[in-house]
């Protein structure tokens, strides 16, 4: 079976309990811009990855491996993989 092309979005965020000074600074800036009611901001990273794989499952497995090995530091970060096309 020929490999198919997939577009994926990988989201990496700080784990709960890990202090996020950048998120805090952004939260403060939002407040200073009069956006009221903000009760928390956490900053993360998004990776849009195009790849070929034999199936959606195979693509997800590959992306999971990418996260474990490089895209996320699992000491402090969680990741989520989504096939978007």
């Amino acid at each position, binding site marked *: 079976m020929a490999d198919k092309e997939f577009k994926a979005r990988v989201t990496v965020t700080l784990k709960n309990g890990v202090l996020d000074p950048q998120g805090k600074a952004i939260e403060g800036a939002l407040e200073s811009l009069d956006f009221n009611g903000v009760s928390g901001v956490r900053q993360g990273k998004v990776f849009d990855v195009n790849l070929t794989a034999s199936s959606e499952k195979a693509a997800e497995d590959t992306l999971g491996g990418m996260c474990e090995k490089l895209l996320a530091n699992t*000491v402090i970060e969680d990741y989520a993989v989504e096939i978007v096309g």
Partner: protein
Amino acid sequence: MKATVVQFPGCNRDRDMIAAIAKIGGTAPQLAWHTDTELPDSDLIVLPGGFSHGDYLRAGAIAARAPVMDAVRAAADKGVRVLGVCNGFQMLTEAGLLPGSLMRNAGLTFVCKEVMLEAVNTDNMFTERYGKGEIIRCPVAHHDGNYFADEKTLKQVEGNGQVAFRYANGTNPNGSLNDIAGVFNAYGNVLGMMPHPENLIEPAHGGADGRRLFESVLGVLQRDAA
């Protein structure tokens, strides 16, 4: 005594490290490049400071996956001493050779200043020439030096005597948990620290408090070789 300094694209403290080892150890270190798959026979491997790969993704993340790191890991597993300073410390945590992680400074700004350090565990080949609890001066220069570890890891690090240095006298420049400035691995042959001992080794630097770290580890190596 054979020391090897590993260079990565974006290193900028490698020269200072090479000079410190040559001056204090009496022999210039060997050099290795990040793409090398083998290291020269070494008793001490040093990962110097800088901004390897532009700090892209996370500080030290890409360098930690460089081909040379497999050789560094294999050497560390055999008991070879490994020292990572600043970006080198970040590489060692990213490579899983040291516990925890180094996050963006709590104040969000790059800090370049002198701090005070407490030598916490001096029963170690890297720190034996400091007095236990001795307070020394040392420069720092980093943007991502905020030491973090989850509760369980932190307990292990503290309980096993793996804290090498703490920021002292209220000089924690980055928000590090428990004021941690440097940690050993569980066996004590790998040390990572954010401060730069190689930049305070002679009167021309304004002090020499960093010198004894090199005298410790290089002296240990010379003794072993004798």
